[in-house]
């Protein structure tokens, strides 16, 4: 809570939407705000009434930069919104940064208004920030599937410490009722957001697979890529990060780098001269630059020139010397010209024809120190591409100083 625990000294609280963002339909803004209030009313005795004129307890507005209070907004990104604890004047008011892209969806290039509003209204009711990862009052925005969003127990404990439980105990668990029509136009097959609860570092009823030990001799990988001089190894939602700057292997999750990407990549590769890494999952792919996901993704892999018979790829690796990217699917492989952005003629070719001794399917592929490394199960095959010669076979995790 805030110092002195300010709360509304009544159960009937009013709100008014003063203006709208041009990013969304007004009806969608109304719905997002109403659903956000409903989250809190479902766990407290509070009732929220919308006013269309005059002074309401909670005045909601969109503004950019300086907007008449002591906390100016900062342009796109950074601060998304803020709200004041219960009280007169500014008290309870919620301001949203118009320089952000507001959306009713859960997408990669916009902030979900329902999620942010639910958080800010927590402040309007007297809650401060929580350091419980995955709670609504956690200060950092987390793209989350909002269709059946539920308050975290930490949020419920916090708000009920201020206002107590609802008059009649809710029959259903505290869920934001799904909107009338599906507001989440999440295209079929597209990844839903990793809600914090799904993040493997979160305690969830069905425990996610634990991270395998670095030196587990049976360790296999889904995908491997370089990134700005480092090497990232992916398995499920986990990332092993090997950096020339640090001796130890860093352990992360995909979520910690790209919260809106899903776990379980099929392939990944870096086009170093474009500072771009591409991730593949099923029949889609994403491009990132550092932490930022390029707009317009995901795209269907068929945009790259694969026949429709290809539903997913096994592995990919970019040859920095020839500017060709090799895609491996089953027992075949394609060569993609990054300069012309097109598949090369004469492909697919059989892997066995050009990479003797390398078994398939190939799980992951990497170019490092002039060699190619092809990963198949718990083994990796070091190949000299110029001579098309298999040099040696090692354990897949030999990069982890085992």
């Amino acid at each position, binding site marked *: 809570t805030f110092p002195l625990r300010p709360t509304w000294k009544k159960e009937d609280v009013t709100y008014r939407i003063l203006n709208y963002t041009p990013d969304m339909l007004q009806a969608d803004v109304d719905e997002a705000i109403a659903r956000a209030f409903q989250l809190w009313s479902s766990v407290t005795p509070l009732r929220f009434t919308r006013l269309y004129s005059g002074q309401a307890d909670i005045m909601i507005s969109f503004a950019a930069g300086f907007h008449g209070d002591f906390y100016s907004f900062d342009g796109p990104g950074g*601060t998304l919104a803020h709200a004041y*604890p219960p009280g007169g004047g500014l008290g309870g008011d919620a301001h949203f940064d118009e320089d952000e892209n507001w959306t009713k969806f859960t997408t990669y290039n916009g902030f979900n208004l329902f999620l942010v509003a639910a958080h800010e209204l927590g402040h309007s009711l007297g809650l401060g920030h929580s350091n419980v990862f995955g709670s609504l009052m956690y200060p950092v925005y987390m793209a989350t599937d909002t269709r059946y969003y539920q308050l975290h127990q930490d949020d419920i404990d916090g708000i009920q410490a201020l206002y107590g439980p609802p008059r009649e105990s809710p029959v259903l668990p505290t869920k934001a009722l799904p909107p009338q029509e599906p507001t989440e136009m999440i295209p079929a097959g597209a990844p839903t957001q990793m809600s914090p609860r799904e993040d493997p570092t979160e305690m969830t009823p069905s425990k996610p697979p634990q991270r395998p030990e670095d030196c587990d001799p049976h360790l296999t990988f889904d995908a491997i890529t370089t990134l700005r001089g480092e090497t990232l190894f992916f398995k499920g939602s986990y990332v092993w990060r090997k950096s020339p700057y640090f001796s130890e292997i860093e352990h992360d999750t995909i979520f910690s780098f790209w919260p809106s990407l899903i776990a379980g990549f099929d392939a990944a590769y870096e086009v170093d001269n474009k500072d771009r890494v591409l991730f593949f999952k099923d029949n889609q792919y994403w491009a990132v630059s*550092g932490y930022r996901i390029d707009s317009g993704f995901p795209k269907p892999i068929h945009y790259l020139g694969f026949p429709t018979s290809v539903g997913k790829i096994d592995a990919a690796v970019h040859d920095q010397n020839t500017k060709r990217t090799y895609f491996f699917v089953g027992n075949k492989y394609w060569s993609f010209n990054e300069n012309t952005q097109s598949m090369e003629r004469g492909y697919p070719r059989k892997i066995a024809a050009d990479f003797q001794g390398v078994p398939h399917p190939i799980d992951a592929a990497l170019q490092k120190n002039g060699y190619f490394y092809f990963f198949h199960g718990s083994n990796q095959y070091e190949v000299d591409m110029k001579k098309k010669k298999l040099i040696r076979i090692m354990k897949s995790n030999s990069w982890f100083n085992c």
Partner: protein
Amino acid sequence: FPVSQEKEKEDMQFAKKYLENFYDFKEEKHSLFKSKDLNHMADKIREMQSFFGLEVTGELNHKTMDMMKQPRCGMPDVRSYS
């Protein structure tokens, strides 16, 4: 991820602003004791790292900077709200 050298100064400025906004950091504008100022900032960095469950080092390592750059709410994380 690797940070180019010239960016480090930028990061320091960014971090100061972040800590002022959310952790009630007040840089002594004309402090005679620069080292005292840096210690004060290191304390605030530790406070922020502790809040987010990061390794508490008091240093602006890449994970701390990454967390500072995440889109977030504009309200402070510590309670000296005024």
